[in-house]
């Protein structure tokens, strides 16, 4: 009887949960696993659902934690930044010259004639996130989904603070530059 409940959730909210997970994990298999873990956990804790929030809000709440778990466990966080990751992102050495001045000055996200509304910016951001090396995109989501002090993030991912900072700095500056370029690409050459 309980399982019927979960099947109903799957029918009614499965698409939404999957879309949410896929956008943040960037991988169909991982997204499916997150949905599965969410529905199983929801089934186990169905008595914990007090009816205060809507069912979909409750399920997304569980899904967020499952996504956080998966981001922590499934990435090889301790691996050093690869050549591919460096080439597909922007770092301080790309942005600044040796004397610490801007080598590639920030340019506006749009020319004044072309006013971007929030929706267009959101779409650009999604394209930019999709283009970011997956580890960096997942780290951005991890920081968004869970507001933890940097030391705890380092602990749970098993990486040094220097590595965390390097990944985050590259991720954020790449997104910033990518948004300037209309979500096309983030290469500076």
């Amino acid at each position, binding site marked *: 009887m309980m399982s019927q409940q*979960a099947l109903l959730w799957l029918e009614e909210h499965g*698409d939404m949960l*999957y879309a949410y997970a896929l956008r943040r994990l960037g991988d169909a298999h991982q997204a499916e696993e997150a949905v599965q873990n969410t529905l199983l956990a929801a089934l186990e804790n169905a008595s914990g659902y007090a009816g205060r929030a809507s069912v979909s809000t409750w399920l*997304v709440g569980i899904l967020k934690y499952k996504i956080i778990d998966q981001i922590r466990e499934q990435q090889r966080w301790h691996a050093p930044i690869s050549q591919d990751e460096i080439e597909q992102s922007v770092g301080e050495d790309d942005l*600044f010259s040796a004397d*610490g001045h801007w080598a590639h000055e*920030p340019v506006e996200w749009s020319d004044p004639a072309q006013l971007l509304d929030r929706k267009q910016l959101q779409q650009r*951001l999604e394209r930019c996130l999709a283009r970011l090396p997956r580890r960096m995109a997942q780290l951005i989501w991890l920081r968004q989904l869970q507001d933890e002090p940097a030391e705890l993030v380092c602990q749970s991912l098993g990486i040094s603070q220097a590595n965390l900072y390097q990944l985050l700095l590259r991720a954020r*500056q790449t997104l910033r530059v990518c948004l300037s370029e209309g979500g096309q690409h983030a290469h500076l050459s």
Partner: protein
Amino acid sequence: MLTCREVSRSLTLQTEAPPTLYRQLQIRLHLLICHNCRRNRRQLQALNALLASETQTTDHAPSLPEPAKARLRAKLEAVNKD
């Protein structure tokens, strides 16, 4: 005087490594005279706001592929039999 590189580093990692009061003052002085760093800061703030609203977004696209749905259905039905 801080370099643009140092200012950008502080601004980009503000949440993880909040600058000391003295550092904040140094940054503010730099921003007064450097329009590139002001633009960098503005864009980083806008990026944060965009990401924050993106985190709240739920919609139904793309939908769960049918094979995946079938696998999930089977898993959930199996729970019942335990």
